[in-house]
């Protein structure tokens, strides 16, 4: 294991009823890496992300964050760490949802500082200062007092990114961050993610934006029917010999 390894998922299996959703997927992410996960609908991309972020329990496989073990396979079944350990592990990563999931009753500022203050026990002043910096970086400096319902989808998603960043995660997951947005608003969210990539934020991104994935990623995984069909640099993926990969990328690019 390398020193700068932040996330290791090994031989993950997840079934919903009789239909296998994930069968034997492994993924390792190093510090500063941007990994994109692409694949057709129902291929298991989102399930993989949900397992990685502990929203869904996997049936079998290992899950490590840094040197912390979230789940370990014992006799073909994942055994999860205790409550306190998992709480610590949750601070290791952040997640940006497809549907933003902002808290509608809180202002933009409160959405961002509520968890740092009430979960991490940081001071309000310090958190507000940090939130102001994040909002400025994301082009939302004037929106601190606005409520989510007063913002466009693109602005809401940027607030959701700020909310995740406020907890200073070592690794940030994106679950189809632009799928709920108009093409017009997609651009502003992708620009923010590009900015984070330029700042060497470690990210795992499930996306349908092929061109974006090609530009921003160090590595791309193509997943279909719960298995990794192909994995490699964007150049390798986009010039793949695998007809299935070629067909998918060709179709999505249009």
């Amino acid at each position, binding site marked *: 294991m390398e020193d700068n390894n932040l996330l290791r998922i090994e031989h993950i299996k997840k079934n919903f009823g009789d239909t296998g959703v994930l069968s034997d997927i492994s993924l390792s992410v190093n510090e500063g890496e941007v990994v994109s996960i692409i694949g057709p609908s129902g291929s298991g991309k989102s399930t993989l992300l949900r397992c990685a972020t*502990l929203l869904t329990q996997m049936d079998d496989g290992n899950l490590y964050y840094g040197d912390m073990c979230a789940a370990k396979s014992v006799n073909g079944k994942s055994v999860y760490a205790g409550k306190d350990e998992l709480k610590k592990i*949750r601070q290791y990563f952040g997640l940006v*949802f497809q549907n933003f*999931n902002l*808290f*509608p009753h809180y202002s933009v500022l409160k959405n961002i500082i509520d968890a740092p203050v*009430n979960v*991490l026990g940081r001071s309000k002043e310090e958190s507000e200062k940090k939130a102001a910096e994040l909002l400025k970086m994301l082009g939302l400096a004037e929106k601190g007092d606005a409520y989510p*319902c007063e913002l466009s989808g693109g602005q809401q998603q940027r607030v959701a990114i700020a909310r*995740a960043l406020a907890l200073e995660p070592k690794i940030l997951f994106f679950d189809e961050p632009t799928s709920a947005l108009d093409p017009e608003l997609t651009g502003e969210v992708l620009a923010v993610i590009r900015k984070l990539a330029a700042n060497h934020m470690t990210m795992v991104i499930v996306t349908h934006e092929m061109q974006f994935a090609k530009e921003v990623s160090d590595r791309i995984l193509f997943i279909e029917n719960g298995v990794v069909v192909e994995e490699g640099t964007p150049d390798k993926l986009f010039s793949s010999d695998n007809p299935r990969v070629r067909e998918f990328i060709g179709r999505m690019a249009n």
Partner: protein
Amino acid sequence: MNITFMQLLSGMVVSVEIFLLTLLFALPLGLLVAFGRMSKNKILQTLVKVYIAIMRGTPLMLQLIVVYFAPFYIFGLKISQGYRFVAVIIAFSINYAAYFAEIYRAGIESIPIGQYEAAEVLGYSKRQTFFRIIFPQVIKRILPPVTNETITLVKDTSLAFVIAVAEMFTIAKQISAKQASVNALMVAGLFYFVFNYAVAYIMEFFEKKLSYYR
């Protein structure tokens, strides 16, 4: 005339007391009942379902009588004069808690799962998630049905006459019989109307206060 007016006034005070005490007990109790109703524990869930079915399925008037006479028939205790009012508060509270519980449940179940997931990923505990994220949104959503129940409660307080608690309606009926005139009953009617108007006004104020977000 003056004495009659004072009697009516004391009846009003009792009606308002029944109303306020019932809300005070039934609103929190309803939330607990809602938790029981949504519990993963099948036994608890079934017990609560039966409780709600009985409370909603039988007349409140009958429940008042049962609560009032239960200490005597079940435990053989002598019923003291002061117990009348207590019995009213108990019967109203457990009855309204059942209705409020279903309103809470509808509100809680209407909050999108994404709100829970966002809170979980941000590290909120279960308790924090409920009280900081979910419950404030539930309150906004359930205000209209709670207003409905509250208005019904104002009028239901008159049912306390069945165990001879001297609330507004009981007294108005006595006066009306003595005077052989419906005037006192008309005054009572006006009282309930004005009371409910005030309730609706206050609830609308809260709704407006929470209309800053969608």
